[in-house]
């Protein structure tokens, strides 16, 4: 399996960032960066990362099932994550979540038919003082209202 030159460079750096014999430390970053490029942690990604690090695919599977940001199935091109934890909840995060579910007619971790947008109800993402917050892929949006959320979703549709 081949990756983009940027990702190859990142992998190369990761594999030399840890003490000798400890390249397994690169596993979780490699899976996350590969997912960003490939769209999910596919069987091929697992095999390839396992080979490069020198562990078995089973060991990779064991680790990846622990981390909530690693997905075995592709999420949408734009993954909309709505926090409903305490600080966001106190500011209407749960209403935002209901709003996005209704608006897109999707449930948690479901993807629109065209594969463009997926939604996920997430735990605290570290934006408590600027709640309620959402993340679209890695981009934070703070003080989100249902109206603002609609604007963000409309913007994503236009970007396609």
């Amino acid at each position, binding site marked *: 399996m081949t990756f983009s030159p940027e990702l190859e460079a990142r992998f190369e750096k990761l594999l030399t*960032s840890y003490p000798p014999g400890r390249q397994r430390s690169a596993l979780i970053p490699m899976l996350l960066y590969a997912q960003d490029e490939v769209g999910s942690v596919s069987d091929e990604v697992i095999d390839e990362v396992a080979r490069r690090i020198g562990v078995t695919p089973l060991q990779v599977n064991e680790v990846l099932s622990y981390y909530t940001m690693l997905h075995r199935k592709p999420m949408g091109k734009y993954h909309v994550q709505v926090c409903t934890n305490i600080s966001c909840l106190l500011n209407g995060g749960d209403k935002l979540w209901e709003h996005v579910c209704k608006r897109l007619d999707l449930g948690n971790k479901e993807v629109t038919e065209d594969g463009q947008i997926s939604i996920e109800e997430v735990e*605290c993402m570290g934006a408590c003082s600027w709640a309620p917050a959402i993340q679209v892929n890695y981009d934070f949006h703070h003080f989100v209202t249902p109206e603002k959320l609609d604007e963000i979703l409309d913007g994503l549709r236009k970007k396609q």
Partner: protein
Amino acid sequence: MLYNEPSPLETRVLTRRFGIPNAASIDVYLATEGYQAFLKAARMKPEEIIEEVKISNLRGRGGAGFPTGMKWSFVPRSSPKPKYIVVNGDEGEPGTCKDRVLIENDPHQLIEGVLIAGLAVDAHAGYVYIRGEYRYLIEALEKAIGEAYAKGWLGKNIQGTGFDFDLYAHTGAGSYECGEESALLESLEGKRGVPRIRPPFPAVVGAFQCPTVLNNVETYCAVPAILRDGGAAFAALGLPKAGGTKMTCLSGHVNKPGVYELPLGFPVMKMINEVGGGIRGGRKLKAMIPGGSSCPVLTAAECEGATMDYDSMAGRKTMLGSGGVIILDDQTCMVKAAMRLMRFYSHESCGWCIPCREGTTWLRKILVRFHEGGGTRTDIDLIGDIAKNMLGRTFCPLGDAAAMPTIAFVEKFREEFEDHLNGKPCPYENATHLVTA
């Protein structure tokens, strides 16, 4: 960038460069006394550095509040093994968003703090573990690390001091548990984030089975100021047993939520009413979670006379924690708050210890049912019983973190639990407080 206006009531030590254009760049850092503390430390003996940190009364800012200088002194300098500096930037405690602004606005301050820790314990490599959601911060930190290498503040023979140090940013991938120090080390080694049995503590057997200093982002960020201005000056900002300032993340029902740097011992009511601009919508304070969701809630009455420091909070059977102050107004449903937090803990329990894995799941089921109006009278005591049976029975503090606030919610707001027993959905649910302004 800053996401909220600073407050005039802040004591700006760690945030002193915030707001300066290009504050995150090495040029601005160097022009504002940056890396001078490192140069000073490089001329000192390691034990003198540790002594200065001890004098500062700096205590760990991640939540546990362990004295930092003492932690550093536990690292066996004479060990033939390499030593490591690990930075906990996993920041997952609900209510906490301070490490984010520290890394974003002044990454070199963190790097300098790490370098000084390296000098103190004879470490020559460090890892900054940042939660996966903070991808932009990993990029920002990698940029800063690149600048530091380019200008000779990282790498071999830093500024002719003969001291070598390499620093790496390392991403997590979604796990609250990895903010716990031993789980973080497992994750750093490419494994599931389950806690290690201690002792041995990370100071002796940490990253890669080697002696390791592991502190929170904010703790390292305080170190340059301590070396630069002296431990005594830092200590004097706070209280006798708790020196310096604390990054405080105000969230919930206040008019001016935001991250503020306040001296240890700042009065709680002044923080809510003056820094936070009071309770939103002219409503009243019902309760405050003082240091992130794991800290038992305080009633409005308990907030009176309280100060933001370790002892004042301990005296009220709660904790200063990570500085995540969550304000709840008089229309908040406390059953819902307890339920939502338990959903979080049951989601994040790593499953290693049975009391935590089963306890959080059981409590979540009861609290969800209870909040929806399907509770029974015996549930109220059952919730408290289950939580008390989790306390102290797990390898890491996640079990306690789930149990302690739950016990407090039930004990302090029992009448709200009683109110939910009429078989109808939450009697507080139609209150307007959950709709954003």
